[in-house]
């Protein structure tokens, strides 16, 4: 049994594909370093991540796959799920093993690897939509709008373009408290990726995203109250359906919402 190990990065995975072709073999498994090796492996190859090789694989993919398929691949990687590694690795290898001119396997959902990668890609896309829905900004005294998120997958890079387009004349910060980084936009130019050296000292609550009251702009509380009032008033009592509500907004997103009843 042939096993490759890699460093857990996308470049590493792509390098593994490169190596597999260079060595004329198809490993049964791609493991992240530190994972336990299976009992019967006679051939272990350690992949040394190499940007140049990774790039060549990616360029090759671009020639063989549609934009949509490429997007699914990069999006599935942002899932950060360990179970994406092997299907994705196999999917990419299979793409290169196909004869020139054959229909791309990207739409063949009867292939378990393609299906797994696509499914995970859909899941991540779904969560990026949820960020577009449920991000809530609070306005700070200095005019910056702040939102804190903690998504299951690393979807922040996928929504920045949307918020840049929508709120292009206000400065904002969207911070992923789970992954300890955010994007800051000054109201001009491009959003910048930022991290805090001392995260404990940030002026907002890392758990529920609430900005310190003395830093809130003077009318922000009023608009939060207006929103909560609206949220309550729009409900038709004769149609109460808490199950649907919780299906649409899973519990884990509630803590960041302005309309959270406990606030």
């Amino acid at each position, binding site marked *: 049994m042939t096993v490759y190990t890699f460093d857990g990065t996308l470049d590493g995975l792509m390098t593994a594909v490169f190596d597999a072709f260079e060595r004329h073999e198809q490993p049964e498994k791609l493991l992240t370093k530190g994972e336990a090796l299976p009992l019967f492996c006679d051939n272990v190859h350690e992949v040394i991540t190499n940007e140049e090789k990774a790039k060549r694989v990616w360029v090759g993919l671009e020639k063989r796959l549609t934009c949509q398929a490429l997007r699914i691949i990069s999006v599935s990687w942002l899932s950060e799920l360990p179970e994406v590694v092997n299907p994705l690795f196999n999917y990419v290898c299979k793409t290169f093993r196909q004869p020139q001119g054959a229909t791309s396997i990207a739409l063949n959902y009867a292939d378990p690897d393609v299906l797994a990668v696509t499914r995970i890609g859909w899941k991540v896309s779904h969560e990026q939509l949820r960020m577009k829905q449920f991000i*809530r900004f609070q306005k700070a005294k200095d005019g910056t709008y702040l939102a804190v998120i903690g998504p299951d997958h690393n979807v922040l890079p996928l929504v920045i373009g949307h918020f840049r387009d929508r709120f*292009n004349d206000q400065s904002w910060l969207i911070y992923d408290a789970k992954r300890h980084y955010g994007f800051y936009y000054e109201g001009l130019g491009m959003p910048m990726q930022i991290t805090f050296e001392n995260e404990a000292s940030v002026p907002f609550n890392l758990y529920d995203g609430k900005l310190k009251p003395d830093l809130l702009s003077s009318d922000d509380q009023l608009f939060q109250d207006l929103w909560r009032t609206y949220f309550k008033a729009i409900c038709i009592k004769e149609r109460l359906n808490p199950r649907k509500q919780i299906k649409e907004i899973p519990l884990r997103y509630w803590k960041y919402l302005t309309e959270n009843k406990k606030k």
Partner: protein
Amino acid sequence: MLTENTIERLRILTESAKYDVSCSSSGTVRRGKPGFVGNTVGGVGICHSFSDDGRCISLLKVMLTNSCMYDCAYCVNRRSNDIPRATLSVSELVEITMEFYRRNYIEGLFLSSGVVRSPDYTMERLVAIVRELRTTQRFYGYIHLKSIPGASQELLSQAGLYADRMSVNIEIPKESSLKLLAPEKDHQSVFQPMKLIQQGVLENKEDRRRFHHAPRFVPAGQSTQMIVGATKETDRDILTMSSMLYTQPTMRRVYYSGYISVNTYDARLPVLKQPPLVRENRLYQADWLLRFYQYKVEEIVDEQHPDLDLEIDPKLSWALRHPEFFPVDVNTADYETLLRVPGLGVKSAVTIVNSRRFGRLTSFDLKRIGVVMKKAKYFITCHELSSPLPGSIRSVNELQPERVRQLLVSPQERKLAEKEKQLTLDLEP
């Protein structure tokens, strides 16, 4: 300046506006622009929250005023009701919309109003708000404006330059019933503005062909709403009206609103303990079949079956009435035929068409793709020599439709349907 009092008025005007079920922010893609606030994303729009009734909150749905000189029997805001009345000023509404939008609470505004003084007087105020939003505030988000029955063409054409979507509600599908419940209205007062909006859109298309920069007129088209269960109309009456409306190129959505007994004292209306939600849901399913599955009204409801089956969805209902159409071979049937299989949606039909080019699909593949096999298995074949599922599957023809129906209705669905049927029986005098 907004105050505590604004909060109270917003509450009143939201309570008054909430019975209009439309909330979607769909139908326009408009990218942001430097110096403007907002964009619209197209597709189905974005729901920013879900209220306790499980409905999507996409827009700030509010009335300018809930005072009204009309007396429509089914409406909370009718003049003979003794309820708190309130009005928001133009500047208040504009400020709330902008501040909500900037905090990512909403996709935009859905504005309507009761009729005060005259239709034109009211419409003018509505136009003033959307004009202010679009020009002074440079608001680029979504605006849905409900047009006031009887407003002049002049005002409608102004409004259309600022709104993404406009709507006029039919409310009651048969004119005789409408006149009985809303003496000040008739179908003319609904269809006339619809026609004007339609004309505006078509003329605007012409203009834009010639002058590229002509502003767009109601780019997200129109929508309308019908109340379900307030009058004796059958589902056939309702769906016939819907399909007639969908023949107009600018009609994007027909909404169905299960009647909620707001004015229990009015003898012209039934007193319902609970709105007919199952029926409403079945109507939406039927509407979906009309719009995306190429069904015709007569296939869904006809003289013998003027009302939708409450226990099963209209697609399954059609399939059980047409066993001769099945089984469908998933490896060869065309897309339209696949769409008729219960348990197979648009997504799985597309997936099947894409995947089967690589090889024959087995029932195992179908399951993985996301086909609801529990339902679909009675209606398909994949020509397998030996079935991988335990026990061989018997088709709808072998089992008889009635038996398949029994197998597929869940006890919960049956109970809900039963409860709702009881509700309507109580209605009969």
